[in-house]
């Protein structure tokens, strides 16, 4: 890798540490995907990038499923460390409930809450021992032990990519302290940036909206995807974690209501992790493809008549970007400031405020496919203008140079 490095100026960033709680095949999550691709992209540009992560695959169990140790993933040096489970699940669950209720926690309780999910002391010790070797350390997302503790080690050279959502966790004092302590922050969208200022008034001084990106596929094969998965009817797609917090339950309810009130030709196809747990009355209309390999995803987006994004808790919404890139219309929950911002800024997506509006959006896609395609085309142009890796990596490099320059002075 060092042999491929570009000419380095004094302020250039050479050696980078990316710290993410999960990494690797089978890991589903927006921040994890951005971290992985940003690390690989910066490595391709000649930076020396190490990814420090855990052995966990599931963000529920945090069990060590990958082997600890050092390996290489494409141009990135990958170091995995074993997680340590919480000492008391009862205490962790009790604190979790209080956080969800927005009950105020003492500083000690907040720390106990952070410790109650997983800890990865080996990663901390490794980073503490080598922090001075790195020009910059990038941590993400905001609510995990690896970020909260990692930010204590060398804050002058640390950037947090928080992937903030307006949720109870974001308003913990420990999050405010983390975002205020470090040198820089990367936000994926302007609404997230604004939320960052509200959460942490003394926000990291070198923060920037860098965005995120997806690879632009050279071609799509929607017909092949349909054939491989036996999808004969038109369908709308939900891609991602099938969880309450991501709006999956509300989407099922909304889709059922839409079917009851409109003669929709669509099935609802879903892929991702988590149990789809489809109610019996919807079993004939919902197709769960389970977990799909990354290679399949572009074709899945292209094969859909529309992508539905029901999640409110989005800091970027990668699936929306991927759908637009595939020329697929997007119908999204208006309660997500980030996705609504994308839809308005691009002029390419529709938002719904309730089940009736969801039904009308789907009825529009069914009744006016040409107009829906025209919207999707605007979305694609928007993605190509703002969210290709060339654009995003340029922004990240500018920020990295700025942070590295600040502590070198």
């Amino acid at each position, binding site marked *: 890798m060092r042999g491929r490095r570009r000419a380095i100026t004094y302020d250039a960033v050479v050696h980078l540490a990316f710290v993410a709680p999960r990494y690797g095949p089978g890991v589903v999550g927006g921040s994890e995907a951005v971290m992985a691709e940003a690390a690989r992209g910066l490595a391709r540009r000649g930076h020396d990038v190490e990814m420090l992560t855990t052995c966990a695959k599931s963000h529920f169990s945090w069990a060590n499923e990958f082997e600890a140790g050092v390996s290489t993933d494409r141009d990135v040096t990958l170091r995995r460390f074993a997680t340590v489970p919480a000492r008391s699940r009862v205490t962790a669950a009790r604190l979790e409930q209080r956080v969800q209720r927005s009950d105020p926690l003492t500083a000690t309780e907040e720390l106990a809450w952070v410790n109650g999910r997983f800890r990865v002391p080996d990663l901390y010790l490794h980073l503490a021992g080598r922090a001075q070797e790195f020009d910059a350390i990038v941590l993400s997302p905001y609510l995990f032990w690896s970020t909260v503790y990692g930010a204590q080690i060398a804050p002058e050279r640390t950037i947090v990519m928080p992937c903030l959502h307006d949720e109870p966790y974001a308003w913990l004092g420990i999050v405010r302290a983390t975002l205020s302590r470090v040198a820089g922050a990367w936000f994926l969208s302007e609404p997230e940036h604004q939320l960052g200022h509200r959460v942490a008034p003394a926000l990291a001084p070198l923060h920037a909206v860098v965005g995120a990106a997806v690879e632009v596929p050279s071609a799509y094969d929607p017909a092949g995807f349909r054939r491989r998965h036996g999808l004969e009817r038109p369908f709308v797609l939900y891609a991602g974690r099938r969880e309450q917090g991501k709006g999956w339950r509300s989407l099922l309810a909304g889709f059922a209501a839409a079917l*009851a*009130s409109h003669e929709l030709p669509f099935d609802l196809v879903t892929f991702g992790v988590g149990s789809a747990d489809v109610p019996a009355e919807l079993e004939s209309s919902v197709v769960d493809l389970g977990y799909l390999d990354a290679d399949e995803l572009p074709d899945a987006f292209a094969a859909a008549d529309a992508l539905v994004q029901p999640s409110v808790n989005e800091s970027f919404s990668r699936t929306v970007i991927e759908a637009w890139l595939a020329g697929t219309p997007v119908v999204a929950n208006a309660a997500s400031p980030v996705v609504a911002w994308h*839809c*308005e800024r691009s*002029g*390419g*997506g*529709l*938002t*719904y*405020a*309730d089940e*009736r*509006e969801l*039904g*009308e*959006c789907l*009825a*529009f896609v069914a*009744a*006016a496919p*040409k*107009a829906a395609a*025209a*919207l999707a085309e*605007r979305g694609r142009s928007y993605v190509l203008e703002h969210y290709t890796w060339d654009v995003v990596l340029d922004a990240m490099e500018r920020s990295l140079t700025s942070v590295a320059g600040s502590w070198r002075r």
Partner: protein
Amino acid sequence: MLVVGTVPPPGGPAAARLGAAAAAFAARGDAVEVLSPDERSAAHRHARLDGVRLAVQVARRARRFDALVLAIEPGLPLGPDDDRLTRALSLAALGLACRGFRHVTVRFASPIPVPGGVGGRASEGLWGRADELVVESDDDRDQLLAVPGCRPERVRVEVPERGGSGAAPSDWSSLAAAEGSAELRERVQALVRVRAAQAARLDATGRALGSGLPGPVHDPFAGAAPRLGGPGARDVVRVVLARLVREVRARVGSAGRPRS
């Protein structure tokens, strides 16, 4: 100003025009109250207005309003099955009730929905009391001018705009022309909101009507208006007494009190 007739949301160009007229009066600063026989109508008050009931409702409001705008529309005040006596009584009573207003405008739907025609002694009194008669076509104007007492300067023809119902189109096909437009998203989004709001109203109406079943319900804004209850006996007595008092005062030569 008292406006009597059907204003939207029940569909139809006549309702849209009367609604637009009422809105224009309100916009120029008049205090407007709309009285409608159709309870779906976005009126201030609803009442049964067929036959002589219209005269009662108008008369009881005469003291509170300077001006009356009265729509003559199907079923208001006469239905196709009303007999001759009913027609005569209804129109005569309405003519009397209109005397309580300083200014009266009668707006006719087209064709003029007065069973038996606009002529006759009873109707002459009504049309003769009006300061302005608004019709929608020259044919309608000619019919009115044939009635003794209808002077040409008081008859105005207001030809409605073609297709101008005043309601926004709520069909997806209305987007076809906007596919290349920069405002395509805004237009689709607006249509989504309008249609969802319509669906919400339908659902609410379904619940109000006791329909707890999921799925589409009948559009309450289509079809015939639900029948409303008429004025009670107390209303009738109150109006008759008021009328008697006024007649007695007039006979003894006392001037009527100025109206607000």
